[in-house]
């Protein structure tokens, strides 16, 4: 009987150890936590991109770590960060303590990423951001290198460069208005959802728009989850705005585009509208999102380089849709595996040193980090795309003969087409 009890205790101990996941039997795998809002497109992008990278690396035998090959093992964590910050921090804690992952990729909402970043840094775990744009997240690396050196941003480039790219898009559309309709000084309504990452962009927009030969018609700040913006639209129309400079990452992007289309408000939408980056946007707006322009990382037929097409088409084949920028977890894991290979170990400090040396051309351009572990923006590095919905198809419209400086060479990526003003806009302003 005594022996039976002992046997039972041993079995229980074995069971506990097995289920709490001590990494004794998984020593030949590299565990990567993929964290994001998994019930939403952004999280799906995180997971799908990571899955593709895992499949590619494992099919090639794994990552070379010293003298052995290690396979990638992904662990999915739903941060639910749109709705609950606590869920986000809990998900990160679980990844690091229960799942004992070696690295983390993902994150989307700045507010959540700042909190998750601190947790990852507490555990000295490398966290590759693939969603949040706020510059401050990377500034922390410069401010306290020893603590925050384990953080790198893969995508997007920071909100200062996001704003700069958007102003180039804005100037491009204003130029088309001047040329085709004779609107010499277009009025711009700045419409930004009420979220942390938008603040700096609004300040920058108010300062930059007049310098670009345009006029600020006003600033509107609807809630990020507003389900009705007809009041704002009436006010925008009354202001005489020609362009709505949109800064949306949440559902208000669908509401705004849909109601502009339904009421045929004579404005051109330019800026960031994360919802408009997705294939599902056309259905979500019932086709009313036609002519919306947004910056984006990928478009079905646009190629930055020779790596874009295989990734985008492979993604479409596997998941049935064009990848959103959060799917750059794919690049994140490829960059990480290269750094691990060079470091020859899983030691975080050694890998940080190797990641800092990264200079790799991937599916969305050439990635190199600055001293704050922020990706470098500009011609020859990451630029992103300007995309527009044209009759049910999301097409690339920028860069189209873009010159970063007077003497710089023109840039036009393969597959770029011309931007189109909405017909009801032309109707309203043609002389």
């Amino acid at each position, binding site marked *: 009987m005594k022996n039976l009890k002992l046997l039972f205790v041993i079995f229980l101990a074995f069971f506990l150890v097995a289920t709490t996941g001590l990494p004794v039997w998984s020593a030949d795998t590299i565990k990567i936590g993929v964290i994001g*809002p998994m*019930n*939403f*497109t952004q999280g799906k992008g995180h997971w799908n991109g990571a899955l593709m990278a895992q499949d590619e690396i494992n099919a090639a035998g794994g990552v070379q770590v010293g003298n052995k090959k290690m396979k990638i093992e992904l662990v999915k964590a739903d941060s639910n960060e*749109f*709705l609950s910050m606590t869920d986000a921090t809990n998900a990160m804690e679980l990844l690091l303590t229960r799942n004992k992952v070696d690295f983390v990729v993902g994150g989307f909402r700045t507010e959540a990423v700042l909190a998750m970043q601190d947790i990852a840094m507490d555990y000295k775990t490398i966290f590759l951001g693939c969603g949040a744009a706020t510059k401050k997240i990377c500034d922390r690396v410069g401010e306290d290198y020893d603590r925050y050196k384990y953080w790198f941003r893969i995508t997007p480039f920071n909100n200062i460069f996001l704003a700069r790219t958007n102003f180039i898009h804005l100037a491009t559309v204003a130029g088309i208005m001047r040329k085709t309709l004779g609107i010499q000084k277009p009025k711009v309504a700045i419409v930004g*959802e*009420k979220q942390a990452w938008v603040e700096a962009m609004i300040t920058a927009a108010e300062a930059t728009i007049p310098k670009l030969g345009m006029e600020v018609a*006003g*600033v*509107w*700040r*609807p*809630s990020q*989850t507003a*389900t*009705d913006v*007809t*009041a*704002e*639209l*009436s*006010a925008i*129309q*009354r202001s005489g705005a020609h362009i709505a400079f949109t800064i949306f990452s949440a*559902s208000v992007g*669908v*509401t705004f585009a*849909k109601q502009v289309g*339904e*009421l*045929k*408000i004579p404005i051109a939408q330019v800026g960031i509208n994360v*919802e408009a980056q997705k294939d*599902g946007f056309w*259905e*979500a*707006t*019932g086709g009313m999102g036609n002519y919306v322009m947004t910056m984006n990382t990928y478009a079905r037929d646009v190629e930055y380089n020779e790596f874009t097409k295989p990734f985008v088409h492979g993604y479409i084949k596997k998941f049935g849709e064009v990848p959103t920028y959060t799917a750059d977890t794919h690049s994140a894991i490829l960059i990480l595996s290269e750094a691990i290979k060079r470091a020859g170990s899983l030691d975080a400090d050694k890998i940080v040193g190797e990641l800092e040396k990264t200079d790799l051309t991937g599916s969305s351009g050439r990635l190199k980090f600055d001293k704050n572990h922020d990706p470098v923006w500009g011609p020859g590095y990451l630029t992103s795309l300007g995309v527009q919905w044209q009759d049910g198809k999301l097409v690339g419209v920028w860069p189209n003969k873009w010159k970063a400086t007077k003497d710089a060479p023109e840039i036009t990526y393969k597959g770029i087409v011309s931007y189109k003003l909405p017909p009801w806009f032309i109707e309203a302003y043609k002389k």
Partner: protein
Amino acid sequence: MISDIILTTLINGSTYALLAIGFSLIFGVARIVNIAHTAFYMVAAYCIFFGTHRLGMHPVLAMLMALIVVVLLGLICYKLFIEPIREHEAAVLIATIALAMIFQEVMLLIFKGDYRTVPPLVPGYMDLAGVKIGYQQLLTIAAALIILAGVWAFLIKTRLGLAIRSTAQDREVANLMGMNEARVAMLTLAVSVGIAALTGAVVLPLTVLNPHMWMAPLIMMMAVVVLGGLGSLKGSFAGAFILAFSEALVVFLIPKGAFLRESVALSIMILVLLLRPEGLFGVYFEEER
């Protein structure tokens, strides 16, 4: 600008009024604070989306289906979760919060978090006093007013309406007069969630469908009900338009603070309560004997 403010007030006010009256009705009759009220509205919206987009039904048929499904769901929830604990108001409140969360999670599981819309029943728009207003918006205002009139007529002209009103005035006396108070409460809940379903139906083409769409109107609906006076239908109606008006004023007068529209509306509610704790059309409920 005045015409913009009036039209915006009419559209939002009629939606808030529809939601608030349904919520107020069940509170007045059965003292049930049904936090899941707007979640029923969300479920109805998904039923219509499912009917039109997945089953290819005519929108009106899908609306009818949604109404039936939501009323049945409401009755099942009442029997299983609310009736056994009805005498404990706090427990009912918590149970309905749980119900709302369950509905949200089930919808999230089935339809995921993607945003969806349904096309308007009447596409197009007209220019009214310099304001572009969609035909669907006009239809929504008209439908909301018709539903409100229907609820009014139902409460005033029918025997069940009389029973509901008398139970709302004094449950115990209504019971002593031979009315089956529990049955009246159940039927009132059915009417209440039915109104929520109809609200979902008329508002759906104007909004963006997602599993969390019940939260924002919940706050406004409760503010309307408290402002108007708990349990007062007249109060809910007036409160709805007052808060919608304050929201419209914020958007048009302080565009940079458009996101504050709810906060301003809630502040107005608090201000009114400080001056008149029972709300605008306050109904003093007798102490339970």
